[in-house]
């Protein structure tokens, strides 16, 4: 398949740069689907990952929602974990030491119920040894301001991103909610408020009804849709964001295989995150990394950066 001898010889460059953070390859884990790295370390070598994004953290521990928290949908799943987590302090004390053993950057995903909670979590995480970047999950309601979801209201979003930007020198990734009319606009707001990078998409709100019980299947009624079902929406949104901002993009949403990751990279993502796929195939990330290299060789390309944003549309 058009493999020229010498392109077979040299292995192509897979490393990318996200706001000064050098990744050995563009494949990271999606927050909340990879725990704090431990669970999957028996299935794959964490050193091979581009980055590890940990489960969303808050300033204080969270118990999350009652069960059922999970329900399957066609080519997807809804989750309503309710952001259960051990809190930033326990994370730094009990989980970071394990992650520091690997030469893979750790990105701490965090969130809050209020701007103050965001600021505090960001401060604590910024001072922790072994946290290389912060990913802000703004798909949560602002309990102080009438439960408006930070990520769906430009003003609220601008405030919280600006505030966090002031409190950290780490690369700041803002993770967008897809539940908006104009994703390019929200990305622009984040960029102007000081984000170093954009990641998307977070899950899309959905519901499944148990028709005999006349009840939503999830105890929380609604949950977040992820998996292959959302991929075409996610790829479209990454492309719109790529046209709207200059900062790098981390694309995710239904990436199951290398070909899916390539769709995101070509549409403008400089890196990708793999989420739901880990549940079905614990070695999905590794297979995707190998698949990207294979693709570059077959296409006779020497550097992954050559295809980023290469979409002819």
């Amino acid at each position, binding site marked *: 398949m058009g493999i020229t001898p010498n392109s077979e010889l040299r292995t192509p460059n897979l490393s990318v740069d996200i706001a000064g953070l050098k990744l050995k390859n563009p494949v990271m884990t999606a927050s909340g*689907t990879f725990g704090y790295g431990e669970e999957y370390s028996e299935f794959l070598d964490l050193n091979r990952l581009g980055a590890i994004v940990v489960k969303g953290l808050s300033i204080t521990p969270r118990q*999350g929602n009652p069960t059922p928290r999970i329900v399957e949908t066609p080519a997807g799943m809804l989750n309503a974990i309710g952001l259960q987590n051990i809190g930033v302090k326990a994370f730094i004390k009990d989980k970071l030491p394990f992650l520091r053993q690997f030469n893979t950057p750790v990105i701490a995903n965090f969130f809050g119920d209020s701007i103050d909670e965001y600021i505090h979590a960001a401060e604590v995480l910024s001072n922790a040894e072994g946290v290389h970047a912060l990913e802000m999950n703004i798909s949560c309601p602002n309990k102080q301001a009438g439960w408006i979801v930070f990520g769906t209201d430009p003003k609220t979003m601008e405030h919280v991103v600006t505030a966090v930007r002031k409190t950290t020198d780490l690369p700041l990734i803002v993770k967008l909610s897809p539940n908006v009319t104009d994703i390019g606009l929200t990305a622009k707001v984040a960029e102007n408020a000081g984000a170093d990078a954009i990641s998307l998409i977070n899950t899309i709100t959905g519901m499944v009804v148990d028709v005999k019980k006349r009840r939503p299947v999830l105890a929380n009624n609604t949950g977040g849709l992820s998996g292959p079902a959302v991929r075409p929406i996610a790829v479209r949104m990454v492309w719109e964001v790529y046209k709207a901002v200059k900062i790098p993009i981390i694309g995710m949403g239904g990436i199951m295989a290398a070909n899916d990751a390539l769709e995101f990279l070509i549409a403008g993502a400089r890196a990708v995150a793999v989420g739901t796929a880990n549940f079905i195939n614990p070695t999905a990330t590794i297979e995707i990394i190998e698949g990207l290299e294979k693709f570059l060789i077959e296409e006779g390309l020497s550097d992954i950066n050559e295809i980023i944003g290469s979409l002819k549309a």
Partner: protein
Amino acid sequence: MSKYFKAKTVDNISLNKHFRLLNLSPLSDIDIPQPGQFYMLQAGDTYDPLLKRPFSIFRHEDNSLSFLYRIRGKGTLSLSHLKSGDIINAIGPLGNSYPEPHGDFIALAGGIGIASLLHLLARFKNKAHLFYGARNKEELVMLNEAKALSKESFITTDDGSEGEKGLITDSLMKFFNSLPITHYPLPLYACGPTPMLRELSKVVAGKDIKCYVSLEEHMACGVGACLGCVIKTVSGNKRVCKEGPVFDIKDIIWE
């Protein structure tokens, strides 16, 4: 030796309208499963159904794994289509296991709950006082096998089509009352529908008896990463797939 492996379908035997026995032969070396552990299984590589489903290890012989399952929805239906020679993806063995009984023990099975307990009965033959209940005769799958491996057995069905008519937890209660108090504590191992287990928690309440139950929750990852399968315990949230599926009934906070 990885817990994520491919296995070849040896056969997929139909026991009756609802139940199947799936025999797999792993294509690579695997860890040895303990009674109470489970595997995440999936037939084919379509994205619908997307997620693997959890199934208790029913039998393990040198290089074969057996699973007893009941057809419920998409996932188990697609499993039921497996033909000899088909390759499937599996993750396991996962979770903890039933603590070893020393001497006699009580096994309480509700319906398909027998799947995880039969492995225990086989490992410790003629030590079990078996209590096995189901909706009806047809749902009492593997009844003879279970009886044969047990010291004595008490059977109930909701409709009386086999054994006594009534709830299995009631006959357990009778059993307890018949015992001279000194005869406690035999350890008790239970697997079955949540209502049965909740009922059990009342039966054993106050009694000085070690009681282990295997719980079910919807699962996505099966390995502890997604936090989809948590239950409330006296020491906070626990993951059924990781700290469980076997829990000391006294630790569980029923909702």
